[in-house]
């Protein structure tokens, strides 16, 4: 199951980042992101999913600029990237729900201007690293079925 959850997240990360933000990501070796911002959402239901997206300010600016199709102000950046992450999270949760015949929903995601979220070594934890010309991104988190 872990491999499949990682695969779902990986496939959706590539597809949504491309479709919504016009960015073609490539997988890269794990790299530390300086001055990372964190977008976080938690899905709860018959399973728990913690999803963290880490990116620096330049990367978030690029996402927002591309979504707006023009330069985004500082205030606008958080609005656009939150919607980006909302769409990504919704797609991931929908696919997990369908694949495993499970049911979970999530509240609106949160953003913080620092790296938060310690992912303990967990049976179903994941950490995926991506890069493109403007910077690196990381998607990490954990998944557990509620027995």
């Amino acid at each position, binding site marked *: 199951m872990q491999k499949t959850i990682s695969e779902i997240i990986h496939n959706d990360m590539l597809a949504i980042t491309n479709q*919504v933000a016009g960015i073609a990501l490539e997988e890269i070796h794990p790299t530390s992101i300086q001055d990372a911002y964190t977008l976080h959402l938690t899905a709860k239901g018959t399973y728990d999913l913690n999803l963290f997206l880490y990116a620096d300010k330049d990367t978030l600016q690029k996402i927002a600029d591309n979504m707006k199709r023009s330069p985004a102000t500082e205030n606008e950046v958080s*609005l*656009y990237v939150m919607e980006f992450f909302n769409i990504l*999270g*919704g797609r991931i949760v*929908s696919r997990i729900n369908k694949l495993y015949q499970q049911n979970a*929903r999530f509240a609106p995601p949160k953003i913080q201007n620092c790296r938060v979220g310690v992912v303990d070594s967990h049976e179903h934890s994941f950490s995926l690293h991506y890069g493109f010309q403007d910077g690196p991104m990381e998607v990490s988190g954990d998944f557990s079925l509620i027995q």
Partner: protein
Amino acid sequence: MQKKIMVVDDSRFIFEDMKHKFEGIDDYSIEYYCPDGETALEKYSEYKPDLVTVDIVMPGIDGFETAKALLEKHPDAKIVMVSSLAFDETMEEAKELGTLGFIAKPFELQEVLICFNKIFNPQQ
């Protein structure tokens, strides 16, 4: 005659994105934007849109509550639900409310056009 669309979504990106995608599509105009359900209920009579798209997850009253209230006040309202959460039961709930379609985010122009055309030209 060009159909005027009202977009109800807490993210203005969705309205702007739809407007951009619909540039050059003569049959529809993405005309009005409401950032929440309360505004949609307040403005519907003034704007008189031909169709409303409603995001499900919004602060305040959610999309389902908004659609229900709109249909109670305006039974002829044509409503399409929009969400990043494309569950079977979500779509079923939308249908049972009396809404006419469901669009999953992120959407492509073609799938939105198919949805709108089915509503306005059901014979085709």
